[in-house]
């Protein structure tokens, strides 16, 4: 047995050959381009669904918007203003073109009252306020999720883990409005420490009343840290069970090195995905949390817009939120590809 010829191993499996190469050699750039294109396509389809959702309903948009003020002449005027007498698809395409180029149009509800208020004027401040809230929350919850999740995973099955997991499970189960309300009960009603609703007036930035940010951020953190840390824990536990972690121990490496360079390094990618998921969850959570505290953000804006049936404002806000949602996905996917060598070289 055995041959005399020098050892020749079988051919190395080559990376998948693509039919045509975009941007030359670097597969990551090609991936980004493909991903962004897919995201844009999804956004376009989503925008159509949004448009259809707000426009197509039993009954007449104009009458419902006008409500009690609906007289035939006013209805006709509003219909003309809102271009409701044209068929759906051309209306949609015009609307899409406008929205994509930043012309967000005028508020339908305002039109119904006879005044012209641009949607952008209504939403740009709330948008900024919400971004402040979101960024602060994200800056806190990412490290917290990772720390708690990894800590629980490293002590899996022991008391610390049980304590963290059970607390996370219970807190994460609660709806945001419930957490927010309970926080108000504790911090305002009982302790009189923090304001229950946001005292920010239009024209001020959230930073003029930093106290007002505490409870909303806490509320958002509650569910996202709870869910996020459990997911990070689960994926970290999986990584800890991998063969290469056991092999690192068999190679005699100190435990610290095994955990950091072998386990956690490979748990980064799934954790990034978890964080992205939580950021998306946050976008939904913001809507309701702002309502609890009357925080002048995009969440309260969209709820209000829906209550008064302001179709244009609702649609624009929805498209913006969907775009952010999709963007977060894309960024997470790209980061994961950069982090995982196998994807980086074969994508």
């Amino acid at each position: 047995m055995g041959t005399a010829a020098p050892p020749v191993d079988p051919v190395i499996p080559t990376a998948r050959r693509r039919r045509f190469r975009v941007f030359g050699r670097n597969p990551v750039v090609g991936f980004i381009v493909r991903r962004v294109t897919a995201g844009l396509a999804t956004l376009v389809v989503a925008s159509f669904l949004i448009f259809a959702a707000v426009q197509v309903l039993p009954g007449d948009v104009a009458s419902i918007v006008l409500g009690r003020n609906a007289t035939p002449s006013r209805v006709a005027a509003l219909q003309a203003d809102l271009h409701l007498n044209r068929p759906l698809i051309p209306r949609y395409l015009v609307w899409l073109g406008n929205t994509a180029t930043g012309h967000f149009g005028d508020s339908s509800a305002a039109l119904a009252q006879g005044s012209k208020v641009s949607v952008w004027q209504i939403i740009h401040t709330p948008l900024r306020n919400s971004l402040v809230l979101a960024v602060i929350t994200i800056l806190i919850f990412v490290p917290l999720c990772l720390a708690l999740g990894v800590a629980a995973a490293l002590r899996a099955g022991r008391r610390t883990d049980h304590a963290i997991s059970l607390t996370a499970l219970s807190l994460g189960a609660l709806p945001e409005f419930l957490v927010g309300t309970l926080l108000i009960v504790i911090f305002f009603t009982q302790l009189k420490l923090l304001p229950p609703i946001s005292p920010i007036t239009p024209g001020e930035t959230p930073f003029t009343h930093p106290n007002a940010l505490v409870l909303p951020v806490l509320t958002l953190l509650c569910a996202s840290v709870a869910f996020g840390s459990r997911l990070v824990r689960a994926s970290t536990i999986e990584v800890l069970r991998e063969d290469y972690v056991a092999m690192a121990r068999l190679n005699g490496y100190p435990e610290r090195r095994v955990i950091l360079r072998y386990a956690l390094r490979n748990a980064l990618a799934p954790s990034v995905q978890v964080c992205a998921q939580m950021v998306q969850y946050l976008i939904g959570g913001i809507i309701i949390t702002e309502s609890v505290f009357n925080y002048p953000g995009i969440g309260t804006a969209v709820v209000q817009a829906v209550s008064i049936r302001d179709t244009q404002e609702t649609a624009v806000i929805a498209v913006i939120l969907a775009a952010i949602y999709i963007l977060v996905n894309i960024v997470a996917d790209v980061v994961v590809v950069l982090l995982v060598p196998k994807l980086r070289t074969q994508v």
Partner: protein
Amino acid sequence: MPVLEVTNLQVHAPSGDPILEDVSFSLRAGEVLGLVGESGSGKTTTALALLGYTQAGARIVSGRISIGGELVEAKVEPLARRVRGRLISYVPQNPGTALNPSMRIGDAIGAMAETHRPDRPSPSIGAALAAVGLPDAPDFQRRYPHQLSGGQQQRVCISAAIVCEPPVVVFDEPTTGLDVVTQALILDELMRLRREREIAMLYVAHDLAVVAQIATRIAVMYAGRIVEEGPANQVLRRPRHPYTRGLLASIPDHIEPRILEPMAGVAVGIGERPAGCSFAPRCPMRIDACDQAVPMLRALGNGQLARCVRAEEVTTPPQRLIALDRSAPAEAAAALCVSNLRAEHRSRRETVVAADQVSFEIDKGRCLALVGESGSGKTTIARTIVGLHAIAAGEIRLGDEKLAPRARRRTRDQRRRVQIVFQNPGDALNPRQSVGTAIARPARGLRGLSATDAVAEVKRLLDLVRLPQRLLERYPAELSGGERQRVGIARALAANPEVVICDEVTSALDVSVQAAVLKLLSDLRHELDLALLFITHDLGVVAAVADRVLVLEHGHVCEAGPTDAILHHATNDYTKRLLAAAPSISHVLEHGH
């Protein structure tokens, strides 16, 4: 002066049941001890225990391990780590999953050197790679594990294991996941390293034929104890324990094909070991004394040790050589005829040809073996015949009927006449259906049997595959791998087929179980006049079971002919390479290493 000494190693499971008992052996520099055993024997537990490592909550209860005179604190894990890499290192079974996917291989090897010999100058990574036959270019060092082939990954693991020059290296079935040619190359590499560096190697394996290629001494384990030990030649030529004898009789050999003799009974699990000799329930030489106490491991001269009261009476298993059929195929119409078959794998990006211009015929009552490595297309061909994969060109005829590509489009009768048994007993059966239901389904669906008739039929089939009737109501999770595989065969037979395709049906089974299943298939073939298409990568199995052989490489037929012609008078280069690389005990006994 032995460089590794193990005395009375004892490892217990979390439940307190012993996994290893009274394991003692020693190793000298430059020696290769082959530790052989089937599943449940404790061989891997032994290998890991030498590094002070246990799996799944097991505990090292007692035992003395010393390497180069230094005592290994095996019971306390953090202390045991001190010897790893420096005195003893480990080469894993599956290098693909054992390497950190986010670490370049140059760094992986360098890390070993830095951690375990920080005071001495590190050997260059290039030299470490060249020492195992890998390119030393910086480009290659920057590769990630997934950019290497299986053989290259294993060489990287070996390089990392020896870079700090430990006196002892443990190899845990390092070639199990590799194809036969690569396996031969790796074994060559190991022998060269042993010669050059005088490393003491512990080579753990379940395949005695592979161990025979490389070991200077062999230790056989059964139910957590060493039952035989001695110089490799002696153990292989004249075993002194009935279990070793049974193993040797059930191992297929392609150089000297013989009829396999399976051992009775099944391996005993942890916690079920009898009070006396663990092998006694299955032993053909059992006497009353065997059940009373565990026999001691005693010396028998020639450096051989055996744990049997009747060791002196154990004889070499007789070689019942098969008279290989050299006759030409019969003139009658073939049961299955494949002509110019072409099969492809299509994805959105590319089309890969799995098989091309493949033609063969199988007659009733004959067995054709399709031999090839992974990627040769043999499984794809099997799937096209049974209708799970569409053919791109060519024709499949059953008798004189042409078969439609997809199973759904074939007639019920056609579907009935061709059946397949899968490789993996773990997922071949629906976990939610009892054995009886699983076997009955083809009988009812393809033969139209009523419920009552089907029950009778299932009972008959269980007898046919030599399974006890009480398994009727059991669920797959309660069965062993060998039992599940027999159920799979029974299920195939339930349709009353003419052609049965066996897709690597014994690859996932222990050697002794494999022998039993192969015997069963042989018997059934003769009893029922079945045409068997046997797919395998193991040439020894081919020798034991097939009349004719077809050798495949990358989807093309290299060579085809009667078994004897292929095994002993091959003409094609690839076939010759395969034959040379495939391990054979008889070859080792005749020609040495």
